[in-house]
Structure formats: structure tokens, C-alpha cells
């Protein structure tokens, strides 16, 4: 009996690993729009992106506002104009990689909260829509009060983070899901970051998505 259970667990782990490693390449046309209050400045970037999960490398082929190629690997950004390297810069952790990773390794609809130790404290259900409230693990409780997720048709539609004073610090919404191969890919992601004095509004859209 113990052997059977062990075999079952090992098989599940193996299949999960296989699924996680099924796709490693994400390519798409993209646009990124940003508006920042305070300075009231905005940016619009358009082009194509290619991300390789195995190499942990992303290439951005910008067509607007100027033609440039950005190669990001190992937290280092190399900027090229034509074939000439014009700038190299060390970046911090690159969040957009996490976004690509999440898409390629799609496992759940909770933004990875459960695997990070968050616990569901309440669930509201209506017409195949779920609003879930999550309590953070003790490590996060010094700066995070709760997280709300919105799931519709088993797809993550939105997530809101609240600080200890119950102020929304980040909200992100996922829209226009398309099934590419067997992966649900949100073609539009809009978010708002709330700082002490500034608000940052951001929208990312994809088209012609290819996963391999």
C-alpha cells in the first residue's frame, strides 16, 4: 500500500514537472503604456518580445518610440541600435520575466499565492465568479494586510494587494484570455501602483502570441 501511494505521488510530481517544462519560449507583439501622476509624463513602447525560459533571456525589438533592440539576461540590459551596442546597464530583478514565466508555466489561477503560504480566509461565489480573500503568511504581515483575487471561469481576472492600513498598493487585471496551444494567455494586463505621492498606471497588451 505504501509503495502504491509513493508511486502515485512520484508519478504526480513527474507529470507536474513535465507540464511545467512543456513550453519554454514566449514570443509576441507588445505595447506598454504608462502614465505617472505628479510628473504627468507618459510613455508608450511598442515592438516585439521574445523570452526564453531555459536561457532566462528576453529580447525586446522596439519599433516605437525609437528602433532599438534590448537584450536582457542575468539582470543585465544591453541596448543595441542596429548592430552597435550603445549601452549596458545592470538591472534589478526583472518583473516582466516573472510575467512571462507565469504564462509559460501556468499552473494555477491564484498568482502563486497558495504556494507562497497565503491562506484563503473567505470566498464569495456568484455565477462562476469567485472573489477570494487571502491572508498573508506571517513574514508578509508587517507590510501586507490581505490580498483579493477575482477568478472567473477558472481564470485569474484580477488581484488587489492591500497594505497594513488596508490601502490598495497594487491592483492588476488580466483580460482577453486566448488559449495558445493549451495555455491561457491574457492578451491585456492593466495595473495601478499606488505610492505615497504618485500613482502609476500601466497597460501591457500582446498580439500574435507564439509559445513553443
Amino acid at each position: 500500500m505504501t509503495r502504491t501511494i509513493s508511486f502515485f505521488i512520484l508519478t504526480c510530481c513527474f507529470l507536474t514537472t513535465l507540464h511545467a517544462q512543456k513550453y519554454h519560449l514566449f514570443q509576441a507583439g507588445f505595447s506598454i503604456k504608462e502614465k505617472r501622476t505628479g510628473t504627468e509624463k507618459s510613455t508608450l513602447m511598442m515592438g516585439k518580445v521574445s523570452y526564453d525560459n531555459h536561457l532566462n533571456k528576453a529580447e525586446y525589438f522596439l519599433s516605437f518610440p525609437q528602433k532599438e533592440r534590448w537584450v536582457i539576461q542575468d539582470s543585465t540590459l544591453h541596448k543595441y541600435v542596429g548592430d552597435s551596442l550603445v549601452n549596458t546597464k545592470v538591472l534589478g530583478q526583472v518583473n516582466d520575466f516573472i510575467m512571462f514565466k507565469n504564462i509559460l508555466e501556468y499552473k494555477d489561477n491564484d498568482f502563486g499565492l497558495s504556494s507562497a503560504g497565503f491562506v484563503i480566509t473567505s470566498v464569495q461565489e456568484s455565477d462562476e465568479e469567485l472573489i477570494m480573500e487571502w491572508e498573508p503568511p506571517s513574514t508578509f504581515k508587517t507590510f501586507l494586510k490581505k490580498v483579493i483575487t477575482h477568478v472567473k471561469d477558472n481564470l485569474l481576472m484580477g488581484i488587489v494587494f492591500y497594505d497594513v492600513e488596508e490601502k490598495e498598493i497594487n491592483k492588476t487585471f488580466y483580460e482577453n484570455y486566448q488559449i495558445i496551444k493549451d495555455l491561457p494567455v491574457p492578451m491585456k494586463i492593466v495595473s495601478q501602483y499606488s505610492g505615497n505621492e504618485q500613482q502609476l498606471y500601466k497597460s501591457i497588451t500582446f498580439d500574435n502570441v507564439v509559445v513553443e
Partner: protein
Amino acid sequence: MKRFFLLAFVLGACLSLSATTTNPGKLTAKKEVIEQQLSDLNQIEKIIKEEGLTYDQLVAKYPNLVEKTQLSASASEDGMFENASGTPLGVPGFWWGFCLGWVGMLIVYLTMDEGSSRKKQVMNALWGCVIAYALFFIVYVGIVGASLASLY
């Protein structure tokens, strides 16, 4: 009188519950606020896609729109990756260590991905922690010293 207080309590509880309850409609409203803020940029994106304009051509043809949005002439990685600069809530590692001591260091360590950035921020948190304790020691010695001096 008891009934009045009971009614007031029940009403208050209901109101506070409805205030904290989130529903899909409320979330949609939040999303629409963001969309509204980005509506001019959506318009510019549509123009660029339809007319295939460069930045200079856009400025020449739609100067008011560019001015209204304060659209940047260059793509900046600062804007693109700023929210991803690594530290929890965008607060530098030093301040996590300074304000929360070893707990702050732990938060920085646990919430960042492995890499040179995490090492740097954890070190910053360590320095914050050390400086906070040093300041505490100086203040403590100062207060004790002043108290002792006042006794003699």
C-alpha cells in the same frame, strides 16, 4: 433602550461588512479608472498602428495629443522595469533593516529572487540594522549618562 442599542449594533455590523466586501462590480470599476487614465495613450497607440508613424511624425501631425500626454521621445528601461526593481514594496533594503531589524532582513531575503540584487539588498538591510542598533546604543548611553550626571 436595549432594543435600540441592539438595532444600532446590527446596522453598524451590516454597514461595516458591506464596506469591506469586494465584488466583481467593484473590481470592474477599479479597472475602468485605470483605463480612463490611459485613454489618450490608447488613442496614440491606435494612430501609430493605423498610420505607421514615427515619433517625429506623430509630433508633427498630432502636436496637441503629444503635449497633452507629455509623451516621452525615448524608451526608458527605468519606466519599463521600475516596478520590478526588486525590493519589497519598492522600499530600499536599508530601510527594511533599519526599521525592522533582522525581521526586515528576513523580509528582503524571502521576498526577492535569488541573485546579485538580493545579496545587495540584504547587505543594505544588514547595514540598516547595524546603524539602527548603533544609534539606539548612542541614544541609550546618552540618556543613561545624562541621568547619572544629574544624580551627582
